[in-house]
């Protein structure tokens, strides 16, 4: 039950602003650190440049998403202008919130229309909305932009949970072998043998439904495959001459793991992260359809809008906006992932399936 409380806390008062900001800050710090590391390391830098030159457009698109997510993560209280949206005085609003402030209509309006969709009353915003408004009159562009932060949060937070976990256990198991390896491998087999979608559902139902618990559940179900990879690679690295030599010289295990094993796994981390990311966003969309997703995600937008295609006249802009947003993001991520794999490691990973 303590788990409930903890998750509830994270999703309760903190969830709106502070908690998300912390996560985003962590992710940003991590990205900067990665960048710095690459800058100093020539091989990595070259790889990065290569990927960039191959996938200029995809990188640009991804940067746009990240920028939007960041703009939505920088939030503070006050500054006025929120009364029209029913925002309370103590609530933090992000740059994006402020930009779209006062854009709420009464109900549907189609893209760029000047009047409401059904009863044809004039809109609050006389020039209309670029992507129309949804049933509650919220600007669809606004909702779509806000989804970027959620998507990156899902991918990022889950990766923050899954990758260190996988890396740690994979390295320890692969490096020490023996009993430790047996144990880790057993746990991995156990988790891996539960169908991931069912396990996800079970975890979310038990943990209760919130952004954090969805991420935790996704983390639990997605760390195994990477852990297996890390373990295998570590076993190979362990047998390399200089690692054997370092051991013979009595260098501590921790130092070997940190200095010799970890750097050699980094390319796997990067590639796995990218491959994991798109599968996480897809998984969240599935969960949203089942009604246990993350609020504000594109998956949820799609799920909410799925019946609108049956409206007559048809309301398509909601599902189209969210669909295109998620599609473009995944496309960019997949393309970059492909290039990264080609550049960094054409062999060991095969295809991330």
């Amino acid at each position, binding site marked *: 039950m303590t788990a409930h409380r903890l998750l509830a806390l994270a999703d309760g008062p903190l969830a709106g602003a502070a908690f998300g900001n912390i996560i985003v800050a962590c992710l940003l710090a991590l990205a900067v650190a990665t960048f710095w590391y690459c800058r100093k390391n020539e091989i990595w830098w070259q790889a990065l440049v290569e990927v960039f030159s191959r996938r200029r457009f995809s990188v640009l698109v991804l940067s746009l998403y990240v920028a939007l997510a960041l703009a939505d993560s920088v939030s503070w209280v006050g500054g006025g202008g929120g009364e029209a949206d029913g925002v309370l005085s103590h609530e933090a609003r992000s740059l994006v919130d402020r930009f779209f402030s006062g854009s709420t209509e009464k*109900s549907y309006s189609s893209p760029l229309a000047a009047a409401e969709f*059904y009863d044809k009353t004039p809109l609050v915003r006389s020039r209309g909305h670029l992507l129309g408004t949804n049933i*509650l009159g919220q600007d669809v562009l606004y909702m779509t932009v806000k989804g970027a932060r959620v998507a990156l949060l899902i991918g990022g937070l889950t990766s923050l949970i899954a990758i260190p976990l996988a890396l740690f256990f994979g390295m320890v198991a692969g490096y020490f072998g023996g009993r430790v390896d047996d144990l880790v491998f057993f746990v991995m087999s156990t988790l891996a043998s539960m169908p991931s979608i069912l396990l996800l559902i079970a975890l979310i139902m038990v943990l209760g*439904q919130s952004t954090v618990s969805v991420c935790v559940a996704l983390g639990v179900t997605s760390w195994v495959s990477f852990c297996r990879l890390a373990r295998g690679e570590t076993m190979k690295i362990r047998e390399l001459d200089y690692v054997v030599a370092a051991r013979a010289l009595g260098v501590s295990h921790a130092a070997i793991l940190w200095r010799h094993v970890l750097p050699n796994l980094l390319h796997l981390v990067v590639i796995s992260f990218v491959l994991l990311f798109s599968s996480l966003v897809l998984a969240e969309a599935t969960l949203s359809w089942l*009604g246990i997703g993350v609020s504000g995600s594109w998956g949820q937008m799609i799920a909410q809008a799925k*019946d609108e295609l049956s409206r*007559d006249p048809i309301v398509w802009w909601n599902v189209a906006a969210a669909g295109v947003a998620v599609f473009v993001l995944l496309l960019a991520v997949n393309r970059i992932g492909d290039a990264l794999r080609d550049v960094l490691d054409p062999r060991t990973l095969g295809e991330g399936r």
Partner: protein
Amino acid sequence: MRKTASFPVALLATLLLCCLAGSNLACSNSPYEDADEQKKILYRAYAEPPKTLDPAVAYSTADQIIVAEVYDTLLEYHYFERPYRLVPGMATAVPSSESLPDGRVRYTFELRPGLAYAKDDCFGPGGSRSVLASDFVFALRRLADPLVASPVVEPFSHLVGFADFGKALEQRRSRDPAFAQLPVDQQYDVVGGFEGARATGERTVSITLSAAYPQILYWFAMNFASPVPPEAIRAYDGRDGRPDFSEHPVGSGPFHLSTYDKQSRMVLTKNPAYYGLQAAAGTAPGATFPDPDARATPADRAAAGARLPFLDRVEFRLEKENIPAFGKFLQGYYDVSGIARESFDKVISERGLSKEMQALGMSLSKSVVPAVYYIGFNMDDPVVGRKGGERSRLLRQAMSSSADVQEYLRLFANGRGILAHSPLPPGIFGYDEAYRNPFRGFDMTRAKELLAVAGYAGGIDPKTGQPLRLTFDVPDTSPEGRLRFQFWVNRWRQLGIDVVLDATNYNKFQEKVRDGAYQIFQWGWVADYPDPENFLFLLTTRMARSESGGPNSANFKHPEFDRLFSLMQARDNDDERKALITSMRSILEHERPWIELFHPEEYALIQGWVSHVRPPGISIPTVKYHDVEPKLRARQRQAWNQPILWPAFALVLVLALVIAPGIVTYYRERQ
């Protein structure tokens, strides 16, 4: 190697063949077998599979669409007349009450001759038998049996000895294992039944109440008091591969259940043993088409006096999502349907059927459902409840004044529903069309004033200096559900109150409700029977959740209200009763334990080939009155479902055009 030589070719060939064969089989969008096209079958969708078909337990609409057709009742509601009137069903007449000494009341039901159960193997292979008075008594005894866990123990405990019988059974069972092994009907006989329900002859049932409770007659128009043959209980015990009684009904109604594959399909077939089809029934009110009223159609007039049922079969298909269900209705594959919110504007124009739909031959039936939706406050809560005194009362009044029902109905129900000023919906005694609840008109200025008087000016809690923080607990985490509840929250936030929507799944919600850890909730109540008592009891102390776990989740406890209720309950519908109801209404108006939201309106679309459909309002068996014209239906279906095939050819062509140049250049290069 030669054997595998043609593997991809074989693969391709098989694939193409399968596609061809498949498209041949799958070339129609009709969900039914073509052979059924000309039969008198009614097609209906159901959204939720029944949980049980045991008439003693079946309480939800999902259960009752089957149970109400399969099990016949002593009394029925007149199909046309409103306000609702009871007419005799299996009974020869609606009994009147007979006062006994020491306040007891007796009703005597006389059974119609020629009543019989549908053929069932529990009566021996292919057997059947007459319905006996003892079967009714057996059914009532089952209600009292704790193992049956009937949800309607409360109203039936007005029967003399009802509760004691249950206790005696339970004690005897735990004391005497041999007894517990006996068939239940024997167990009941050994314990001796109870005084309140006795068979005084083969065709006479006598019901004795410990005190006046006129509403009891309504319960005899529901499946709970339908006759149950003890043979069926013995035969269908769910052991050793035998079905359970809850999934194998044995009744005497107009239909019997011939297919029960509840996760996808259920089929009712006309019961030849139904008394309406027997010569003796003559013009029994429950088995004959009633005389037409003012709203009657020519078809209704033509059918007057005909024997029921008309249909040979009723096919129910599970449709969890209402969009595809409505889509199939528009394709002619369902005969009756509600209107999906998404398609409302196409179907309805200016509260009537659109031209387009009229052209398709459809008709529309509208009725207000005897139900009320409300937002409740937990009166045990220190902030919104009675402990907060006047301040909380004003807060509730303010929040009530800012709930914009009209807009909500427009957005989420296409305006199908009427604003509720009190718990009582139209059609129920005590409903006053002229009554206007001062806190139920949408008035933000008034709401802000009330809030300021309460001490929460601008929504700011003086204690903290922050906006007052309240939690709106909802049991629905679905994406659509969130949107709905967010609507109310948005209005309150405009008052400046920080209302947080806490959407948890149903069981966490239950947990909260049980622990009393909730402040504001939304709920709905659909009447069991058309009597004000069935609504107002929801606010009595006796029913409070915190007291007895009853349905009064608002935990409204008001002694004066309780006193008025007990006076109102036992009265017939006279002026005195009306006055009592008015007094109770004004208590609610002032105290605001509920924000009464609306009484939903039900719009049913009916295909041109279906006749005699009237909205039932209360869940009562109606399918027996329905009729279809299969020939017309087959014609229309064909006309409405011509597939558009050119895109398929276009796609193949485009694919070929894109790929061909590649293949050509490839081979040219290789030369």
